[in-house]
């Protein structure tokens, strides 16, 4: 385990040594800040049926920024090591392959969580200034952040997979962006494609990240998405591990 922690701390530190991390942080916080402002000012103008917290987590700004950050966070994970050749000293040290793969994944996850922590401030500020809670209940906060965690794990694991398959960071970024966007929009198919049978649309509706977020941010913790995201993350990480090991057998 000690080796795993060594690898993990190095991964997290290396994020903060790179300018990409800071660019992503600033870009993301800028967009979420603007989003929060727009939601609140929209509510100032008319009556709505949802809370500030729900508005924040379901707006189009949110989803736009959300889908974009994953390729940026994960593209360098493996691809850079392959490109620079630092994979050689890494794999000739007495460490196991799974330790490396999991350390990279969790390193990305830690960075992702750091990205989101400042948003808690928005709700705290709102509470302070208006003396009204931003959500119905503590459960709503919990639900939305839980969904963030689950979605984060799933999309980061997809990013890990694309990063391990290539030496080129741009390719990794583009492929993961396409995969994540497609998966994400799978949920919208039920509204867009009307000639698809209703059974298919219902099925696709189960995969909808948007629907999941809507439910969770109301405080309704549905175990089905939890199992879906956890199991899919495990699948993606297993594939990443296999792809990582397979480079030994490739020419």
């Amino acid at each position, binding site marked *: 385990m000690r080796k795993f922690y060594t690898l993990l701390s190095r991964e997290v530190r290396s994020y903060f040594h790179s300018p990409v991390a800071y660019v992503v942080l600033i870009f993301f916080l800028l967009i979420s800040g603007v989003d929060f402002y727009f939601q609140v000012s929209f509510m100032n103008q008319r009556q709505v049926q949802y809370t500030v917290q729900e508005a924040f987590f379901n707006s189009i700004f949110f989803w736009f920024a959300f889908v974009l950050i994953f390729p940026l966070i994960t593209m360098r994970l493996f691809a850079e090591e392959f490109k620079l050749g630092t994979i050689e000293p890494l794999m000739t*040290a007495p460490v196991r392959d799974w330790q490396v793969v999991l350390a990279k994944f969790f390193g990305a996850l830690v960075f992702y969580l750091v990205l989101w922590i400042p948003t808690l401030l928005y709700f705290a500020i709102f509470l302070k200034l208006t003396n009204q809670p931003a959500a119905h209940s503590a459960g709503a906060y919990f639900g939305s952040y839980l969904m963030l965690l689950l979605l984060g794990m799933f999309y980061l694991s997809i990013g890990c997979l694309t990063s391990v398959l290539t030496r080129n960071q741009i390719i990794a970024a583009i492929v993961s962006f396409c995969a994540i966007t497609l998966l994400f929009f799978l949920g919208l198919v039920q509204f867009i494609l009307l000639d698809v049978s209703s059974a298919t649309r219902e099925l696709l509706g189960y995969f909808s990240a948007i629907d999941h977020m809507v439910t969770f941010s109301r405080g309704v913790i549905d175990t089905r998405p939890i199992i879906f995201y956890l199991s899919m993350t495990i699948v993606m990480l297993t594939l990443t591990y296999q792809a990582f090991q397979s480079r030994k057998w490739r020419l």
Partner: protein
Amino acid sequence: MIKVENLTKRYAGHPAIQNLSFEVGQGEIMGFLGPNGAGKTTTMRILASFMPPTSGRATIAGFDVFEQSLQARSHLGYMPENVPLYNDMRVTEYLDYRAALKGVSHRRLAERVGDAKELCGLKEVEKQLIGTLSKGYRQRVGLADALLHEPDLLILDEPTIGLDPNQIRQVRELIKNLGKQHTILLSTHILPEVEMTCSRVIIIHKGRIEACDTPENLLGKIRQAGGVVVEAKVGSDNGVDELKKISGVRDVIVDADGDWKIFSLRVESGVDVREEIFRVATDRHWIVRELTQRRATLEDVFVELTHPDVV
């Protein structure tokens, strides 16, 4: 320490190394020589468990590099070609990280890192970012990295590549000192270095071992076992014929420099013909202005065995 049996590695059907077999005993400094593309780096990577062989076996300290990869890796310190390092870390940070990765215990970590830095002369640059270091220092960081967990065996892939002569000398001294306590396998193009530091040499060409012996034995074996150069005014004599008559002389090539003729003689190994040449010269009243013995060098052996025309 290292035992290699019938090691073969194919890349897309093309064999990089074929049926290599050799052994490196404890305490030896083994030099691995060969032209570019001969298979040196491939062999070292297989030994370091970076890639598996297509067939054959290799063991490090008795541990198979493929089946018991983790134990094999713990017994060896490997320095890859072109020393890839993380440019965003500082020297001390990097060495601390590598030591922890190699299983150096908490208590001993600071001591081991300090020792490695001391040995490789990294104290002055310990707080610098690796990305800002010169090549010489990067090489030293790579070497320090290999030493951190006190391995019995060091495998160094071209440790002096790209260094200036001063740095090469320093690294050579370092390797010589390390050789007293570690077994070392190093690959290089710098032949004088091999003659000076290595106890045995393997010459590899197109994936096969051409020779595996001590430098002295290798020098003794090659056809062109050295030579003598004579520069003389021979008048109307046919210098070549006269010199060829001397026993021990295999061949004579002549070059002219005005009145002076430069004869390059190929001599059988172990025979000193200079005395005979002097006698012939005085008998025939030649005026000799140079009479030198040219020692065979490892470069001759290398070129002889790995010349592109030779298969």
